[in-house]
Structure formats: C-alpha cells, structure tokens
C-alpha cells in the first residue's frame, strides 16, 4: 500500500501541493503578523493611553476608551481575516489534495468536504450513551466496497450545559465523540438493534463490573461466549437470539481484530439491517498543516483512514451475501 500511495503522492499530490503552497505561506505569514499585531496592541494599550493623555491634555479614561475601541476593532478585523484566509486554504487543500487521495483509494468513491453523516444516523446508532446537543460532521466519503454501500465521515459531538445563576452562571462543554463514523449495509436482514460498546466496567471491576452492565439499560444485556470479546466489549440487544444471529464467532473475532489494529476506542451497532462503526480519533483528520508543507507521511496517514473503511468492511465480511439479503 505504501508504494501505491507514494506513486500517487509523487504523480498527483505533490504537483497539487506546489500549486497551493503560495496560499499556505500567505496564511502562515498573515497568522504570524496577526500574532505580532496582537502583541503590539497589548503593549500599546498598556503604554499609549497615558502618553496620549499627557500630550493632548485630555482625560486618561477617554483616551483609554477610544484606544480600546480602536484596538479592539483592529484585533477583531485581523482575527476575521486570518480565519477567512485559513478556511479558504483548507477548502482548497481538501478539494485539491484530499479528494485526490480518496480517488486514489477508489476512483468510484465520492468525497465532499462540506457534507457529513446525518445526525439521525448517529443518534439512532445507539453506540453513545451520553446525549449531545452540538453536532458537526464533515469530510464525507461515500461509495461501495464490492456490493456494500457505505458512508464515512468525521463527526464531533458535544454536550453543552450551564451551572449556576446570574453572575455565577458557567458554561460547560463536554466532548461526547470525536472521530470517524462508518455507516454501511449489513449482509443480513434483521429487525431489532444490537449495540456493541467498549467495555470499561468489566475491565476495571471484573465480575462486579458485569453486574453494573446489567443494571439500568433499556435493551437486554447479552453475555457472549467469547471470553476475549467479552473482556473488550459489552453487548446490548433488543433480542438475545438476534444478537447471536448477528454476532457470530467470526464477527466477534473480526471486531477484536479491528480494535487491535486501530488501537482506539471502537464501538459498533447493528440497526435496520445496517452496521455502524465508530472509532475515537481526536483532532481534525483531513486538514493541512499551516506552518509547513504537507508531506508524504501526512498523505500516508490520511490514506490510512480511507483504507480502514475497506479493512473494516472486509474484516466483517460484509460482501458475503449467502443469506436472503442480496
């Protein structure tokens, strides 16, 4: 895979990067200028009001007020311009570089930097027990792997809440999920819901943890036979038999392999004959560096995320269609 990415990088990505390199340098330069201006404004606010008040023989507070308004306006203006430049560069990077990397992975896949996965799909997956009231999704890749239709995108969700009253009112923002989310056809028809979450209770508390898992959940807790699987995941389902119909020994083994391969917190769910897969990977996965050029290692890291879609679909054997669902 590395040699294929290198070939694509040299033939397609590097020329595209050369084209937008000037833009990157402008953005980096403007950012540094903005930083210097902020430092200048800060020093100015500390030193200038007194000086100007003495020279012009006016009230110190009036001079301070005027300077705060002027400097504040300049600071906001610089921030907005820097933000716009950065956004424009990111958009150009995504359309010229990320899109090419997606096509290099599979020429029939579609990439859209502005689109994401529908919030209802995320909510209905049932993977996340913490509610959210802020949702953002972008960088959607859609297509097929074999006969399996899929969508994959970055998702960030937060829960914002407030404590205290009046002057003591405080805003809190808790991150619920930040990573990649894959939504694909499953190869069996089923009616209920099966959710497979990372198992923290049993890991830390052993058998006692298992007792906690059984308490206070809407769906039924399902204890699976695979000991290794049980150690890493906890399963809830609307029906015990359907859970085992979906989670065959082969699927459980595949889930363990996926977790070990990608080394992050992963969760799965099976809803409406579709499979959802979420992997926690903080940060912006498909955005460029500002202070240095995008290099081959960066391209390889991005491609790894796209190839992971194929790996997960193949690991779960979703292209095997020997049951009634074609």
């Amino acid at each position, binding site marked *: 895979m590395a040699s294929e990415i290198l070939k694509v990088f040299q033939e397609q990505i590097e020329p595209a990067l050369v084209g937008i390199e000037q833009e990157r340098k402008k953005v980096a330069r403007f950012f540094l200028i903005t930083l210097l201006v902020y430092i200048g404004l800060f020093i100015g606010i500390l030193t200038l009001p007194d000086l100007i008040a003495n020279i012009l023989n006016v009230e110190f507070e009036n001079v301070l007020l005027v300077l705060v308004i002027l400097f504040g306006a300049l600071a906001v203006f610089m921030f907005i311009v820097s933000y716009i430049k950065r956004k424009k560069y990111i958009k150009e990077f995504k359309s010229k570089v990320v899109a090419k990397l997606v096509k290099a992975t599979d020429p029939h896949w579609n990439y859209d930097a502005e689109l994401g996965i529908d919030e209802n799909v995320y909510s209905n997956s049932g993977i996340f027990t913490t509610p959210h009231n802020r949702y953002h999704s972008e960088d959607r890749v859609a297509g097929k792997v074999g006969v399996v239709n899929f969508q994959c995108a970055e998702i960030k969700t937060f829960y914002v809440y407030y404590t205290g009253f009046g002057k003591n009112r405080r805003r809190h923002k808790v991150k619920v999920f930040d990573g990649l989310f894959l939504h694909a056809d499953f190869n*069996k028809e089923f009616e209920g819901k099966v959710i497979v979450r990372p198992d923290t209770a049993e890991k830390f508390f052993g058998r006692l943890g298992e007792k906690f898992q059984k308490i206070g959940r809407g769906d039924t807790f399902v*204890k699976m*036979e695979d000991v290794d699987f049980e150690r890493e995941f906890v399963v809830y389902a609307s029906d015990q*038999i*359907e*859970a*085992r*119909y979906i989670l*065959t020994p082969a699927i459980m083994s595949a889930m363990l392999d996926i977790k070990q391969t990608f080394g992050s917190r992963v969760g799965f769910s099976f809803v409406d004959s579709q499979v959802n897969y979420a992997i926690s990977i903080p940060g912006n996965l498909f955005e460029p560096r500002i202070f240095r050029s995008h290099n081959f290692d960066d391209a390889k890291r991005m491609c790894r995320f796209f190839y992971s879609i194929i790996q997960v679909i193949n690991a779960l054997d979703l292209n095997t269609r*020997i049951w009634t669902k074609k």
Partner: protein
Amino acid sequence: MSFILAGVGVLFIILVLIVSSYNGLIRKKNNVENAFGGMDAQLKKRYDLIPNIVAAVKQYVAHEKSLLENITALRSRALGGNLNSDEKVAIDNEISSSLRGIMVSVENYPDLKSSENFLNLQRTLNEIESQISAARRSFNAAVTVLNNAVESFPSNIFAGMMKLKRREIFVIPEAERQNVSVGKLFNG
C-alpha cells in the same frame, strides 16, 4: 428491645434472600424454556422449507430418491409430535446432516445449482440455519446460567428443594462434526 429488633432484621434479610433466590431460579428456568421455544420456532421454519427443497431438487435428481425420501421421513417424525427435548434435538441433528448431504449432491447438477428458484431456497436455508445456530447459542447461554445457579452455593440448596436439575447444553454429536460422505448418503 434492640435484641428483638435485630432478630426481626435478620429474619427479614433471610426472607429476602430466600424469595430472591427462589425468584431467580424460576426466572432462569423460564429463560431456558423460552430459549428452547425460540430454537423450536426456528426448527419449525426449517421443517416448512424442506418440502420446497425436495420439490426443487426432485426434478433434477430423480435417481437419488432415497436421499429425498429420508429427509421427508425425518420431517414427518419431527412434526409428528410427542417428542421430548432430547428426541427433538436428535432428529434436528439428522435433518442438518441430511440437508448438508443434499446441498453437496447439488454440486453435481449445474442446471439445478444455477436455477433462480433453487438459489432463493439455498439463501433461505442459509438464513434459517444461521438463525438456528443463534437460537442454539442462546439456549446454551440460558442453560449455563441455570446450571451455575443449580450447582453454586447457596442457590443449590433452593434448587434441590425445588427439584431443579442440571440441563444439558446443545452439542453437535461427534458423527455430525465429520464431513458428510455423499456416497454413504446415496447408498442409504
């Protein structure tokens, strides 16, 4: 006075333990019955599919009558009623083996293998077999939970009083784990 209260408290705790142990065992027993019922329902689906398979295959493999007659007879016995759990399981194993044999023999008939009707039947059978496998695993899980309760202290005391016994989990007999010999099937 405090001595009496303490005594009442202890009696209350003992009563709660007795009631929860009793209820727990009843729940586990019912889960096993429920799981067996689930397995039964899936087996019934397979019995219903068998005539369709026999009809589809018969046209092409007329000279392998004994194979088809065997599975038809097994189906009749399974649906005949008055079978206990062990007998049901035994017949189910024979049917599984017989169906595998038919599917293997179909490999020799390309026209049959590619017919739309047969392909749909094969998919349906695969689906049902997967559901039967899931039902068996659920049954085994429920039986394991019951057996743990029946054999572990102190619930084994209550299990003994309630005459609850260990149940056997569903296992595939050794003969069934071996590869099917098509020749043996054809020769009866």
